[in-house]
C-alpha cells in the first residue's frame, strides 16, 4: 500500500466514523411517529450511489462497465426519485391540519 493510498483510506475512515456518530445523535431524536418517513427518506439518501452510477455510465471504460453503470443508474434513480417523492407524500399527510 502506498502512503497516498493509506492517506485517502484514513481520510475516508475519519469521515465514515464521524458521520456514523452524527447519524446516531440525530436519529435517536426522531419520534416514533416519523419512523416510516425516516426509513423511506433515508432510503432515498442511500440512493447516493447514483453518483457512482453516473461516473460508471458516463466514463469510457468499455462496454461491460457502461452497461453495469447504466443499469445501476436506473436502479439508483428509482431509489432516489421514488424515495423522496413517497416520503414527501407521507409527510404532507402529517402536516395536513385544519
Amino acid at each position, binding site marked *: 500500500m502506498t502512503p497516498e*493510498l493509506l492517506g485517502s483510506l484514513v481520510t475516508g475512515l475519519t469521515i465514515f466514523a464521524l458521520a456514523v456518530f452524527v447519524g446516531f445523535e440525530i436519529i435517536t431524536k426522531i419520534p416514533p411517529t416519523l419512523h416510516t418517513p425516516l426509513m423511506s427518506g433515508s432510503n432515498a*439518501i442511500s440512493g447516493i450511489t447514483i453518483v457512482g452510477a453516473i461516473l460508471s455510465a458516463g466514463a469510457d471504460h468499455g462496454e461491460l462497465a457502461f452497461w453495469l453503470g447504466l443499469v445501476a443508474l436506473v436502479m439508483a434513480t428509482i431509489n432516489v426519485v421514488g424515495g423522496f417523492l413517497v416520503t414527501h407524500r407521507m409527510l404532507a399527510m402529517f402536516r395536513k391540519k385544519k
Partner: protein
Amino acid sequence: MSAEYYPHLINLAYVVAGILFILGLKGLTHPRTAVGGNLLGALAMLLAIVATLLKTKIIEDYTWILIGTGIGTVIGVLFATRIAMTAMPQLVALFNGFGGGASVLVAGAELVKNIRALTLDSNGAEAAATATPNVVADVAIVASGLIGAVTFWGSLVAMGKLQELKMFKKNISLPGQQVFNALLALAALALGVWLVSDPTNMTAYWGLVAVASVLGLTLVLPIGGADMPVVIALLNSYSGLAAASTGFVIDNNVLIIAGSLVGASGLILTQIMCKAMNRSLTNVLFGVLEPGGAAADADEVYAGRVKSTSADEVAMLYESAQRAVIVPGYGLAVAQAQHAVRDLMDVLESRGVEVEFAIHPVAGRMPGHMNVLLAEAEVPYEKLREMDEINSTFPQTDVTLVIGANDVVNPVARTDPSSPIAGMPILDVDKSRTVVVVKRSLSPGFAGIPNPLFAADNCLMYFGDGKQAMLDLVGALKEL
C-alpha cells in the same frame, strides 16, 4: 481559476451536499419541520448529482445518462404516486433493494475499470501494467458486492412476503439452515480474499455476488411476517452501508457520509424494534419462536368465558364513557379501516369523549406504520401516544377498543415467564374498565398462543371485519 482547482470545487459541493443531508435528517425530528427536511435531502441529492455531471467532463455524450435517469424517474414517480399507504412497507423494501443492487453494479463497473488500468496501456493494447493495484478499492469492492447483493435479494424476498405473494407465504426453513448460511458466508469471504489477492479476477467478483445473492435469499426466507419491521430496518441499514463502501470504492466522500448516516439510522431502528419485541437481533434472524411448552391450550383459556358483543352494545358503552383509547394493529391496515376509525374518533369527540390512540412500536409491518395510516386518515399526530406514555392511563380509561392487534396486548407477556412472548413490553389494555376487541375470530396472533385477554371479565369480543365493524359502530353511535 485554473482547471486544477476544478476537482476541489466539486469536492466542496459534495461537502455542502453532506451537510444538507444531515440538516435534512435533523428536520425529521418534528412533524412540523419534516417536509422541509425531506426537501433539503432531495436538494442535497440534486447538488451531488449536478456536481458529478460537471465532474464527468470526460464524457462527451450525456445521452445515456439522460436516458437512464429518465427511465428511473418515470418508474420511481409511478411507484411513489400510485402506492397505497397500507402497502408502504413493500415499497420501502423494494426501493431498498434497488439501492443495494446499484451498489453491486457500480462496484462491478469500477472493477472492470481497474482491471483495464492494470492490464491495458493507454492505447488500449495489452501491454505492461501502468497502474498498481489499489487494495483499499478492492476490499471496498468486495464489501459493496457482498452487502449490496444480500440487500438486493433480501429486500426482494421481504417485499414478496409483505405483499403476501403465494410463493413466499411459507416461512421456508431448511434443516441445517444456520450451518448452510455460515458456509455461504465463509464461501463469500473466501471469494473476497481471492479477489483482493488477484485484483484482475472478474470471476471471483461475480462468484462472490452469486454466493451473497443466495445468502440474501436464505437469510430472509425463514423470517415470518411479524418480524418484518426488524428485517426492513436492518436491510435499510445494509443499503446505507453498501453505499458507504461504494464511496470507498470510488473514493467519494459524499457517498461515505450519506451511506453511513443511513447505516446508523437503520441500526437504531433495528435496535428499537428488537427491544419492542424483547428479542435479540440474533434471535430474530436465526431463531424460531418456540411454541412455549407451558403455553395454555386455546380451549382451556377461552372455554365458555368469551363474551361476544354487537355494534349497539359498544355504542352504549361509549355513551357513558369519558375517555376512550383506540389500539390499532396490523389488522387495521389489512382491513383498510383507518378512515373508518377516524370517523369513530370524530363521532366520539362530538359527544365529548376524550379519544387517544395507543401505538405499540411494532404494530404493523414496519416502524411507524400505524402513524402513517392514521395520518393519511387525518388523525392529528398529537393524538397518537407511545406505549410508555399511555400505559399509565389505561386504569382511567373507560373503553379501550383494540382493532387488529393481538400479541401486543396479550397480558401473558407480563404474567407467564414461560410464554414465548414473556417480557415483551405490551400495552396494558386489560387494565382499562372495558376492553372491546375487534377481530374476525379467536385465532392466535403471530406468536401462535391464545390471548387470555379475550376471556377476561372486562373484555368483550366484537367479531367481524375491521372496517365493517367500525362503520356499523359509527352508525349505531349516530342513532343514539
